[in-house]
């Protein structure tokens, strides 16, 4: 099968899943009585004073299917409701807050993957030796660390002893003014990338400084996850016949491990990299909350504690769609890496 038709087929398969996702999301809101939902959706004192009129106007007492249809129609036109905590439509809020989170992800993802793979490889290559035990304990420890606690501990250390060294937020005040003033063009709203595009060193460094702690916090757990996976995958790979062949060829151990074993060991890691996305999505909520890093996770948290249901559900829906697409990309990537996989069939 051709790649294009494979992708099209996969996209078609997504439709029932996404329909299920929307149904589920909508089902959650339908657990409330019409009055409660009226209170959830309106933001206007006038309308609050007359809830029956609101119910009437928005058809909140209509049969489930009718309401679902209406809602689905709105979702398709990009109307995910209104986010009260930031006084703007949910879709606008996502657009406003996404770049910050993307920036975190841009730095955290390569760090997670590279470090996870490197450590996993190292541990496997040193199986049952001190280095392996060390990395293994570190991985279990990292995997057990509550992200929020790690963040707080980092804050305790860096705030307490190195004041101003790695500050919270996204940019320092003056840099922020610089970024928003005329000569600086905000192409992406991702500060580091914009800084590069504008060839602005100070902005880049300042943005990077603000990123260090959140990125570290976000990465630790996931590095541990990838590392563990990579280690067992590498161990499996290193036990394979082709490794012996490679050694018998006279290849250096470095080449054997890094070329022959790793390429194969990466395949299962790629299949789970979708979960890394999920873990990141979960992680940004906590990380951004702790570091006052105003991205989409912070906004979701604010919405959640403010019981701003339409925002939270809009956010969940957005994440689900993204997650599903990421998994699609991962699957396509998988077919590229493993020549044995024929499109649409999977291994074996």
């Amino acid at each position, binding site marked *: 099968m051709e790649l294009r038709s494979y992708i099209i087929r996969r996209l078609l398969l997504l439709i029932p899943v996404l329909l299920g996702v929307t149904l589920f999301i909508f089902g959650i809101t339908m657990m409330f009585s019409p009055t409660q939902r009226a209170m959830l959706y309106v933001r206007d004192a006038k309308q609050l004073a007359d809830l029956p009129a609101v119910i009437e106007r928005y058809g909140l007492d209509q049969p489930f299917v009718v309401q679902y249809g209406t809602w689905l129609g709105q979702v398709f036109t990009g109307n995910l409701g209104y986010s009260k905590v930031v006084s703007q439509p949910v879709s606008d809020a996502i657009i406003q807050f996404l770049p910050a989170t993307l920036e975190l992800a841009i730095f955290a993802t390569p760090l997670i993957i590279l470090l996870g793979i490197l450590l996993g490889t190292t541990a496997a290559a040193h199986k049952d030796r001190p280095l392996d035990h060390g990395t293994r304990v570190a991985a279990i420890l990292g995997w057990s660390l509550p992200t*929020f606690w790690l963040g707080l501990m980092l804050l305790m250390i860096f705030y307490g002893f190195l004041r101003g060294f790695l500050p919270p937020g996204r940019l320092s005040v003056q840099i922020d003014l610089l970024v928003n003033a005329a000569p600086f063009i905000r192409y992406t709203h991702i500060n580091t990338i914009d800084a590069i595009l504008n060839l602005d060193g100070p902005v880049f460094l300042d943005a990077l400084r603000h990123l260090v702690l959140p990125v570290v916090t976000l990465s630790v757990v996931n590095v541990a996850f990838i590392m563990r996976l990579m280690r067992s995958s590498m161990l499996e790979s290193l036990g394979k016949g082709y490794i012996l062949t490679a050694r018998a060829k006279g290849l250096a151990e470095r080449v054997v491990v890094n070329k022959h074993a790793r390429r194969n060991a990466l395949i299962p890691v790629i299949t789970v990299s979708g979960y890394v996305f999920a873990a990141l999505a979960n992680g940004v909520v906590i990380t951004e909350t702790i570091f006052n890093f105003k991205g989409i996770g912070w906004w979701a948290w604010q919405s959640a504690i403010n019981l701003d249901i339409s925002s939270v559900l809009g956010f969940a829906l957005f994440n689900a769609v993204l997650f599903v697409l990421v998994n699609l990309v991962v699957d396509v990537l998988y077919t590229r890496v493993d020549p044995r996989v024929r499109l649409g069939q999977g291994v074996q």
Partner: protein
Amino acid sequence: MTDWKFTARQLVRNPLSLLGIIIIVIFVFIAIFAPLIAPTPESHQQRPYMIPRDGYRAQPEPPSEDHIFGTTQGQYDIFYGVIWGTRSAFRVGLVVIGIVVVIGILLGSLAGYFGGIVDEIIMRITDVFLAFPALILAMAIVAALGPSLNTVIIALTVVSWPSYARLIRGDILQVREEDYIEASRGLGASSARVILRHALPNAIYPTLIMASLDIGAVVLSAAALSFLGLGAPEGYADWGQLTSFARNWIVGPPGDPLKYWYAVTIPGLFILFFVLGWNLLGDAFRDIFDPRLARR
């Protein structure tokens, strides 16, 4: 049974898994004897899970004779909180894992055994749930249902059952191929009987063990939700919440930055060790069950 003996021996011989076992045993001990370790004051008898407080001042107080771990924001006693929090942790973990495993076995074996349209429907439903990043879905559910310990349990159950159903389905599928199921069917045994008597026990021991070891992960998620303010009511003995109380007290006044170290460190360490214990054990079991790393 020799297999179990072998497993037990492996666990005890590996220092890491042994450490895990010790940690878990200690926590079980704490949970069981919480009323003895941290007795509930008279006035609190009716609601032992609410942490007693010593006044209403916000500023945490350092460890003292009355409060051996100090008090956190709002003068909640940290020691009482973490001890009784152990019970809360076990409660959330055991209830969620219990429900999830039951649902997983039910739906997973239905899907795996009958296959066809049943399988298709159940798997598409799991697809829907797995389409969400877990914590985000849990967060949405808790926010929608209103934060409380029970909603946390519901939310974590909702987000975690699909993967267990899938695992068990996979196990069943594997077993179904094996001959003795065919054989017992040939002898006229009913499907349900076949599943219950033959397929399940063989298929799911490892899955069950791995599931029960996920308690650590469940508690971690619950703690995260609590930390975000989407968990038990304020004042409830809960580690995540105790950590969140410390949020405003991470750094002490100038010149004494670690003044409130106890407020954030102690509850966090309890979470860390609890999860670590289960993960250590889980890691050892993973190695034992992993056919790829079979013993040499």
